[in-house]
Structure formats: C-alpha cells, structure tokens
C-alpha cells in the first residue's frame, strides 16, 4: 500500500501584480516525507511555498492538501485550515510587533482554536534557547532570536504540515543546525511533514527528499 500524498501541486500557475504568469512545478509530497526545495534566488521557491500555504492565488491548477482541494476553499476556510493544520516560517519573520514573544505564541494557539498551553510554549522556547526572551517584544530580539521565535511559532500547534521559507539563512552554523534539528524533531514528534524552501545548502544533508528548482 503506497503512502498517501499529503501535498500535491498540479498544473499550478500564478501571477504577482504587474508581473508575468509563473508556472509552478508539479509537486507530490507524501505524509512524513520531509522535503527540501532547493534553488537559487528567482527559482520560485517562495512562490511555491506560498501557493502550498494558500497565500498565493492560483491562475490555473490546484493545490491539494491531504487529498482535499485546498486551493479551491473560500478564503476564510483556507485561513482556518492553515491556522489549524500548518505551521509557517516566512522569509520575513512577521512576528506581531505589539505583542511579546510569549503572546505571539499564545495567539497562534488561540487563533487555531486551541487552549493556550504555556508550559508547552516555554518548553519549545527552551529547546530553541529563547526562554529568556519570551517576555520581550520582537523589536528587542536579534535577527537570529527572532528567527527562532518564528520557528517556535510554527511548531507550537503541532501541525501536520510545516512550511518554512529560508528558516536558517540568518543563523550562524551552530544555530542553523539547532533550528533545522528542532524543526525535524518537531516534525517527527508530531508526525508532521516538513517542507523547507531554501538556498542554504548547509541543511541539504538533513533531507532525504530534495527537489532542486531551477529558473524557468
């Protein structure tokens, strides 16, 4: 019996404002199959991640998640699904500036309809080495600390699918290793599938499934 596909991108294309249509590669990723989308700048890694996350409206084609037509859901249903089932680490970190790191993590749980589990938040923060930064606003964090806070947010709901866009590019080797190890460990622990888009070849060795993207 074959492993069911968790993510499938078929015949998808999209277009940025004032830009040309972009054809996305067809992708099929099985549940539990951690995948690296590797490519240089301009190869469409971020666009593909955004399309899978439902942040990018498709011109053609479809994105299926867990066998369901995710890309055809209404905007609100897509937001709800994403909040509950996906963890996102975006290229620009986008933590909510007015809230502390702890409140950012708690909000992520609340918006997914979960009860806030502060013990779990602290455990995740400790595993990323930011437990002493929990009560600080994002502007008081270094770039690396903010990136780790974003990773904490991505895993806090124990999602089925974790999408990370350049999660390690701002980290030094030590923290890069720690972050990708945590991401993979979280994915394993909660049976989530991790998809990482990056040009950072340092983490290539952690992934058995690497999709090399090339410029169209």
């Amino acid at each position, binding site marked *: 019996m074959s492993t069911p596909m968790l993510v499938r991108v078929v015949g998808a294309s999209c277009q940025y404002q004032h830009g040309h249509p972009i054809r996305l590669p067809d992708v099929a990723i099985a549940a539990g199959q951690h995948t690296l989308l590797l490519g240089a700048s301009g190869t469409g890694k971020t666009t593909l991640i955004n399309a899978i996350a439902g*942040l*990018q409206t498709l011109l053609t084609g479809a994105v299926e998640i867990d066998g369901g037509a995710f890309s055809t859901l209404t905007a*609100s249903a897509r*937001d709800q699904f994403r*909040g509950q089932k996906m963890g996102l680490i975006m290229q620009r970190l986008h933590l909510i500036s007015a809230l502390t790191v702890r*409140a950012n993590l708690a909000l992520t749980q609340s918006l997914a309809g979960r009860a806030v589990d502060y013990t779990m938040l602290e455990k995740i923060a400790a595993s990323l080495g930011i437990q002493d930064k929990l009560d600080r606003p994002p502007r008081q964090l270094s770039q690396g600390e903010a990136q780790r806070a974003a990773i904490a947010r991505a895993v806090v709901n124990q999602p089925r699918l974790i999408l990370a866009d350049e999660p390690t590019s701002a980290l030094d080797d030590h923290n890069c290793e720690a972050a990708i190890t945590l991401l993979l460990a979280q994915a394993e622990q909660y049976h989530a599938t991790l998809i990482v888009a990056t040009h950072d070849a340092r983490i290539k060795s952690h992934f058995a499934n690497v999709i090399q993207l090339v410029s169209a």
Partner: protein
Amino acid sequence: MKNIGISFCIALAYLRERKFSAALNVLLLALGVATIIALVLILTQAESRMQRDSAGIDLVIGAKGSPMQLVLSSVFQVDIPTGNISVEEASQVIAEPAVKLAVPLALGESYRGFRIVGTNPAYIGLYGGQLAGGRLWDKPLEAVLGADAAKTTGLKIGSTFNGSHGLSDSGGASHDQAYSVVGVLAPTGSVLDRLIVTSVASVWVLHDHEQEPAAAGASAANPAKDDHAGHDHSKGNEVTAYLVQYATPLAAISFPRFVNATSSMQAASPAMESARLFQLLGVGIAALKGFAAIMMLCAALGIFIGLMNALDERRADLALLRVLGASPMVVVLVTLAQGLMVGLMGVILGLLLGHAGAEWIGQTYAESQRVAIGGRIWVVEEVWIVLAALGLALIASIVPAWRAYRDATPELLASR
C-alpha cells in the same frame, strides 16, 4: 466570543504600543465629554432647584426695577432686592380677590452669608418646611434656621447671634441686638435650607422703625395677624416684597397688569423670569456645548487619523493574523476595538472629570451659599452623551476597519 476577546487583547497591545497618541485622543475626547457633562449637570440641577424654589409662587410684588432682579432676590435669594415697598400700598393690592395668599418678605440682613428673611410661617409652608427641633418664633428677634444654615453656622437652639447689615457674604456692620435661635428646620432641598427665618417685625425692630412691638411682633401662632400687621397696624412700614399665590388661574391674566398699572410697585412672574434667564444664558450655554462638541469631533478625527496611520504600519501584522487562522472579522474587530477602547477610556475619564468639575463648581459656589450644585448625581442625558461619544469613536473606526478588511489579506504577505 473568543474572537472578540482576542481582538480586544491585540487592540490593547496596539494602543499600548502608541500610547502617547492614544492618550492624546483619550484626553481630547474626555475634555469634550466632561464639558458637556458638567454643563448638563449644572443646568439640570439649577433648573430643578429653581423649579423647587419657585413652586407655589405665582407672582412677586416688589419695588419697580428689573423684574428678573426682583424674582432672583425674593424667590431664589441670589440677587440684591430692587428696593422696598410700602406695606400700606401693598396691603391694598393683596386684598384683591385674585390673591389667595400673600407672604411678606423683609430682606436686608444676613449672618455669615446666610440671609435673614423676615416673613411669616406661611413662607415655611410654601416649601413644605417642618421643624426638626424647637419651635417657630413668637416674638421679634427669635429666629428659625434652615437646615444648611444650622449645619454650617453651628448654631443650635438657644444660641444667639448678631445679624449684619447687607446680604453679601462679607457682611456689613453688626447689629447690637442679638437674635435667639428658637428652632431648626428639617432639610427641604429648597432655598429655605439656606435661610434664617424670622418675623418681619424682627427686621423692623433692628432698623429702628417706629413700631408697636405688639403690632410688629406677628406671632407664629397667628400668621393672619402677621398678614394684617402691614395694613392694620404697620402704617409707614416697608417690606421688600410679597410672594403671591393666585386664587384662580385666570388671575394670571389680569392681576399683574393691575399691579403694574395701579400702584408704584411691579409684579414679576417667577416662571416667566426663570424662562427669560435660561433664554439669556442659552447663548453662552449653546456656545460652550458647541465648543465641547467640536472637541469631541476633533477627538474622533484624531482616532480616525491614528487608526489610518497605524493601519499603514500594521497591515502586515493584520495579514499575519489571517495567515495564522483568524477570520476577516477578527481583523475588523481589532481595528474597531482600538477606536472603541479609546472612546471608552475617553468617556470614562470624561464622566469622572465632568462630575468632578460640577462638584468643584458646586463647592466653590457653596461657600457663598447661593447655588446648591454637586457632581454626585446622575442624569438621564448622560446616557445620550456617552452613546454619542462612543458612536463617534465607532464611526471614526469604520473606514480604517473596512480598509483593514480589504487590504490585510494573506496574499499581502506572499508579495513581501
């Protein structure tokens, strides 16, 4: 419900982040609300007080001059009398069948800012006054204290005091002859509380009128005799005014004209003069209310500008809420909640300041014992002021909220 809680928590965090501009908007709105609240409280209490003080008095007969001054001095005890009138002449007028009751008032004395009113017991009856202790006067230089007068002066039954010439707080020269306190009245919520009441004869005695004590000393036990004191036995004496009750409503048409046409006195209607007073004050009050309304509008504009500026800075934040699973309604609520919270804080602060302001004004004027105004009451109009202020804050937030709904979409983050 959970979405509302989340929205308000985020909104509060956003307000804390730009607390200076939020505080300015709160203050501006609070000043507008406070000004209107204080005006409403003062006017409501002043109107209510004037209605209570003039209840049962259809007409005032006094010396010619300003009718408003006559009413203010004789009914509300807040102005200087227009002069004195002859008891003999007045007696002829009040003997008309149109008059049911005529209560004499002899003013000109005070004690520590409290006016001493020479009158008869019917005056106390006009305000439903009851003795809290002691008795009414029996002879000249016996006095009964209103509730506030007794409390403030500390005078008790059996105490004596020397009245001063004049009605001002500072007082004039003191008389040699002292009054004895024989009774204290229970509070009535009217002008009576702030007066020291005695017989007309007491005032005459102090002013060295040639007067037979028996005639002048109208007894409390026999007020009719006091009423008669003027025309039967008091020829040549003067009083300040008569407070008149009509025998029939029709008297209101002809009797004032009769007084004005056939005597050297004037007749003034408390109802008409009160209405005229509020009409005169109306321009100033309307200007103050308008100024306060402009402050509230400026505050609403401040909320609008603040939210629009914040929206430009926080569009990505709001889009992130959608990315994390928030419904579009949460984004709208976060924006509306900021406006509403500023509005709510402004209203609460405004209510506190308005009431404190009215209390302060009341305390300031209480020293002169002329106006009984305070901030410890609530009036229905306040509900409308609160709703108007919150409505303004809400309206100011609608456009930013709509823009947040339209622009802060997950796709926004995809393009960044």
